[in-house]
């Protein structure tokens, strides 16, 4: 019977806790009052977030979190999360925001709210500076390398007709070698891969030509916290127009933000 009593007691506490959170002030004023913005960031996903040689977190997401805290004029507390636990951290109010290369999908939209997109994450066509291509139609008569069977291969094959020569290579590395050795002037791949090449071989820096499939990153906000979502959206819009996001993109992705973002 004692255990049953305990159970009822804990259930009662739980109910109190739940109702008290519901009756709490909105997240935005809570965090402004607290003077600290808690943000869940990745630590194992460069260039979005990784641990630098000085053991400090660094990356696009971390700089984005810094920017938001600066603009809100509060202190920043970075909470390292993994991709599996970033949403639970938000739902249990351990953090105010998730800035962790978070993509949007219907299941996630049921659980949390999203801001506007703040970072590009896409499959696209990349190529040397002197190649001018800005759409799938303009690929006619050109040769483009891609990794066989990858999502970008399927997307690209849907978009172009047989006037475009698609060179399909065995794996990512072979595709990259083909681009780096000049065997193909264009490749279809993910923007992170392109970033990696730009870092390793700056002389053949692949530039973004156009998007194949877009899955940008959003800031995750607790469900129903519209004031906070509005605030974050305002700051993202401001960062876009002020060139702050462009600066972050150049610093971490080594390329300009795509126009579509």
């Amino acid at each position, binding site marked *: 019977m004692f255990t049953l009593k305990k159970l009822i007691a804990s259930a009662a506490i739980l109910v109190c806790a739940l109702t008290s959170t519901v009756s709490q002030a909105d997240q935005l004023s809570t965090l402004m009052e607290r003077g600290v913005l808690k943000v869940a960031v990745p630590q194992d996903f460069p260039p979005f977030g990784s641990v630098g040689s000085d053991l400090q977190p660094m990356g696009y997401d971390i700089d984005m979190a810094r920017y938001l805290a600066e603009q809100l004029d509060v202190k920043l507390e970075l909470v390292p999360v993994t991709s599996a636990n970033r949403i639970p951290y938000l739902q249990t109010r351990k953090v105010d925001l998730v800035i962790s290369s978070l993509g949007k999908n219907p299941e996630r939209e049921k659980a949390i709210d999203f801001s506007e997109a703040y970072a590009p994450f896409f499959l696209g066509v990349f190529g040397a500076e002197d190649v001018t291509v800005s759409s799938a139609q303009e690929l006619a008569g050109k040769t483009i*390398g891609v990794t*066989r*069977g990858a999502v970008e*291969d399927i997307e690209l094959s849907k978009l172009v007709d047989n006037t475009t020569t698609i*060179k*399909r*290579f*065995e794996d990512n590395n*072979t595709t990259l*070698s*083909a681009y780096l*050795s*000049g*065997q193909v002037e264009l490749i279809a791949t993910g923007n992170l891969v392109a970033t990696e090449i730009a870092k390793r071989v700056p002389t053949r820096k692949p530039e973004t030509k156009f998007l194949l499939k877009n899955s940008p990153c959003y800031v995750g906000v607790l469900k129903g916290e519209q004031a906070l979502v509005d605030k974050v959206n305002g700051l993202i819009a401001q960062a876009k127009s002020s060139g702050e996001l462009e600066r972050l993109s150049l610093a971490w992705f080594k390329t300009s933000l795509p126009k579509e973002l």
Partner: protein
Amino acid sequence: MSYQLDFSGLLPYLPELAKGLLTTAELTVYSTFAGILLGTAGAAGRISNKAWLRWLISAYVEVIRNTPFIVQLFFIFFGLPALGLKLSAWQAGCLAMVINLGAYLTEIIRAGIEATPKGQWEAGKTLGLSHWHIFSRIVLPTAIQRIYPALVSQCIIVMLGSAVVSQISVEELTFSANFIQSRNFLSFESYLVTALIYLLLAIAMRQLFELSARRLFKNPVL
């Protein structure tokens, strides 16, 4: 063991397979002819009285026979552009096959030449024939006839080895199989059919060689 075979899934991709088969056949024809020529020239050079030529050819033979084909292929396709020589995937693949076959055939044909009895050279000399005439009219034909089975096998090995050039995006038979497999995920069916096509190709090649042997040699060994 409850896998349900689904060959109908391959039907939409038959043109791909046909295209791949054609490219493989094309590569094989070019590389076989050029490879036999290169191997014959190499063998002639290896028995030459010019030391530098013998050295050059043995270096070529050793380098090619002691390195993997795929490395040779990648070197030609990805490496040479750094030196300014940019070949298309097809050209690079075909060149790699010719160079590879040439090196092996040099050794095979040389063995045939060395097995030719000295008396044939001497008989030619007494008849007043030039060195070149003795080589091209007497020694080489008998040498080729002697090593013909080994030559045929090597050509077939290189034909099968052409599967590797799919790695540099040459759209030959293996490329087609990989491509089809990446679209319909019917790996078992795709590769089974492809293996059968290779088998038929190899048998057809052997038949062709046998046929030409009957034409070429008075007493074919096959």
